[in-house]
């Protein structure tokens, strides 16, 4: 994504001249530094002080003693976490949700993009396009309200249909069997249109003469999708896949936080929701920070790896 335009290395310049050139360059960009000042102060306060604060992962944090005053306890918090019974279930749930969302929403958004691209009815296409993007802009609180109207036992439309067909009403949101599916499908419902945009953009870059040639050669619509459209957007799919790999430990805190309840903690709890409850409801700041840090370090390696892979394979990266 980044094109570096480094100057060509000319004949070696004497050191002194280099230094005075640098000084001149700095002087020339004085006002740029001034411009950078306020954002950089913001970064120090709001992004770096939290990193500094994260040292309480190695401390027995007491609010009274503050970050610096609390005693060091080494890796005790990490040990507590790794040895606890919820460790594997948290990891499993987190990965399950992020991988599951990817497995459902990626094919769905690719198919939606192709359908929007191929649709022969402009009216239908415009309506679907407009409506499919909209849910992305609704918050998970609103989504929760919609899901209640749809799924709640006794007053949800879904259960009415089930009962009409002779089945038994299910409390979808507090049943450990159905809850993961509610999470996965509601996420697909909300985000599929939005994730389709990037594929639609890629589709619109396809050279039409390819289709024309294929048509003359006698390829039908299915074959044209198989041999022209899909290969054309394959690099974009790979990029999206790789970049998602980097955020595999983010399973969607806002969504799960809104939808889950104590009955489904066993299948619904992810790292982030656990950190929230442990830290801010039970005031185990040190332990919660340790888990957050654990996730942060792993997440960092994943993002860096994904970024590197993306640059290697597709020549585009985030930074």
């Amino acid at each position, binding site marked *: 994504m980044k094109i570096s335009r480094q100057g060509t290395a000319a004949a070696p310049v004497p050191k002194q001249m280099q230094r005075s050139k640098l000084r001149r360059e700095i002087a020339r960009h004085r006002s740029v530094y001034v411009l950078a000042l306020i954002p950089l102060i913001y970064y120090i306060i709001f992004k770096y002080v*939290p990193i500094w604060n994260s040292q309480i992962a190695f401390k027995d944090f007491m609010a009274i003693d503050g970050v610096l005053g609390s005693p060091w306890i080494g890796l005790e918090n990490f040990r507590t976490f790794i040895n606890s019974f919820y460790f594997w279930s948290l990891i499993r749930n987190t990965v399950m949700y992020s991988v599951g969302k990817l497995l459902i929403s990626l094919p769905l958004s690719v198919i939606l993009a192709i359908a929007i691209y191929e649709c022969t009815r402009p009216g239908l296409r415009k309506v679907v396009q407009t409506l499919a993007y909209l849910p992305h802009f*609704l918050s998970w609180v609103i989504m929760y309200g919609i899901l209640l109207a749809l799924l709640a036992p006794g007053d949800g439309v879904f259960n009415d249909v089930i009962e009409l067909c002779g089945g038994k009403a299910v409390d979808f949101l507090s049943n450990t069997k159905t809850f993961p599916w509610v999470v996965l499908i509601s996420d697909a419902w909300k985000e599929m249109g939005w994730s389709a945009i990037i594929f639609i953009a890629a589709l619109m870059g396809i050279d039409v003469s390819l289709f024309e040639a294929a048509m*003359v050669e006698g390829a039908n619509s299915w074959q044209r999708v198989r041999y022209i459209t899909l290969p054309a957007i394959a690099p974009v799919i790979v990029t999206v896949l790789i970049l998602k790999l980097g955020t595999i430990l983010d399973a969607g805190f806002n969504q799960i936080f809104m939808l889950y309840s104590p009955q489904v903690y066993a299948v619904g709890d992810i790292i982030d929701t656990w950190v929230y409850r442990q830290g801010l409801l039970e005031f185990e700041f040190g332990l919660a920070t340790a888990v957050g840090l654990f996730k942060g370090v792993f997440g960092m390696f994943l993002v860096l790896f994904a970024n590197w892979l993306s640059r290697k394979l597709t020549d585009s990266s985030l930074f």
Partner: protein
Amino acid sequence: MAVKVQKHLKPQIQNKKVKLTAADHVFNICVNAFMVFILIAIIIPVWSTVTLSFRPADFLGTNLEGMFLPPWDWSTDAYTALLGNDGFLDAFLNSFKILIGGVACALILTVPMAYVLSVQSLPGRKIINMIVIIPYVFNVGMIPAYLLVKDIGLIGHLPAVFLPGAISTYNCIIMRQFFVGIPNELKESARIDGCTELQVLFRIILPLSKAIVMTIGLYYGVSFWNDFFNAMLYLNDNYPLPILLRNILLASGMNEYVEVSAFGNAPVNAIKAASVFMSAIPMVIAYPFIQKYFTKGTLLGSVKG
């Protein structure tokens, strides 16, 4: 790259010699059927919420029947109850303050940062870039951030909701990417004419970047408007809309969070659905504007090589 409203996204091939085969017809039917399926899948949940909000108190049928209740039998009790409630108007006002303050703050911080990072000849640009990227890649989680907000005394004040997220590094990168794409000659000629960097930013860059600034501003606006987590953590009683909505939704018969009975005699479920709808309305109204810019902006940010 520009997304024009055109009849077909895929350019239609006018080749009379090639006849559509049976497979082609099946393909078209499948495509259109899929589109109709998506349309229905999107509409049903929304429609069930909307009809629930208009349900009269004396309605006895199931929800399924409620979805087909004719509009002349609808009741607006839930809406009059909501709009007549002070808590709702206060929450709306708080949301609005967070939106305006947040977007202003975010743009004031993000635009200069993105511009600084786009000046290729800047000595030390790599260092500044590192300062921006490191916290993005290394996310230490919510507790250290909570401690910070607590330590600087923002708890209970509206800026606590938007200040922690006032620069999203991702948005900053997208904007920088756009600024880098503006031809260097334009900037250089302005500098030669004696413009300072501030003037280059305001006279040259910004007028050319309206679309991206609008898009990023809208991204920020949506995220601040929808935020409930920061508001829940940091605010005490000056709640914005999402928190009120959450409290209304979580209030069961026990009325733990809000007195649902304070909303008159409309049915509780109708109140819930109506507050969902009312919270979504501003976003739905703003949506056509958002849509106009975001498709452009998303493409600018993502596809650009």
